[in-house]
């Protein structure tokens, strides 16, 4: 539905889930689905201490806006809100939040899931994962291996 309300944000601010829920509130919506991506304490069996998120910011902002429009074109949603955080995030902090609202619940679940899958393979954001082997002095970092959606030009 082209009348869907869209909100996107990219920046270092702490993600406030209530702001996304407020952004998708709609009297015609009977369902809201909110996804949060969170920094977890492990990856490949190793202890993660923090993750640095960086982006090609102008392009990422443009693609986040495109993504919100694509979600609204593909699913019967009333509103779409997408926020991605940048900078250094501790374990437990949200790096991304996507909320959608719709008259019936199937559309909200499917729209939110499609949006996060698509975001992860199209929006130019990268993460540098910091590990610890348990000794306080150790700090090792590696770029998390990424993926491009198969339909992007090669």
């Amino acid at each position, binding site marked *: 539905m082209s009348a869907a309300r869209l909100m996107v944000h990219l920046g270092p601010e702490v993600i406030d889930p209530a702001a996304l829920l407020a952004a998708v509130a709609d009297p015609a919506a009977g369902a809201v689905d909110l996804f949060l*991506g969170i920094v977890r304490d492990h990856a490949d069996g190793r202890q993660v201490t923090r993750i640095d*998120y*960086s*982006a*090609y910011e*102008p*392009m*990422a902002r*443009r693609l986040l806006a495109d993504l919100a429009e694509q979600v609204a074109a593909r699913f019967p949603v009333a509103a779409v809100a997408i926020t*991605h955080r940048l900078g250094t995030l501790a374990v437990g902090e949200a*790096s*991304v939040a996507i909320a959608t609202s719709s008259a019936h619940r199937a559309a909200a679940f499917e729209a939110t899931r499609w949006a*996060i899958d698509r*975001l*992860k*393979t*199209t*929006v*130019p*954001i*990268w*993460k*540098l994962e910091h590990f610890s082997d348990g000794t306080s002095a150790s700090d090792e970092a590696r*770029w*998390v*291996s*990424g*993926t*491009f959606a198969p339909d*992007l*030009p*090669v």
Partner: protein
Amino acid sequence: MTLDVLLFAGFRDAADGQPVVTVELTDATATGESVYRALEARFPAFRSLRGVGRLALNLEYRPMDSALSPGDEVALLMPVAGG
């Protein structure tokens, strides 16, 4: 033609940490491929990343053989890993 190339993540590391590298392109029709060859010539670490990245031209994904013009915003992107 002289172009600034924006680099991120692993590509930035491969360019000794530089976020922007200015390249001089001598091909009659300069493309993303020309940019990549110029970077490989200067930073050997780009060789092992050949075929991994994508070209962004004026904030859009474009085929690596797209023709480039002076003033274009050109970036090389490693596979994305947001979320």
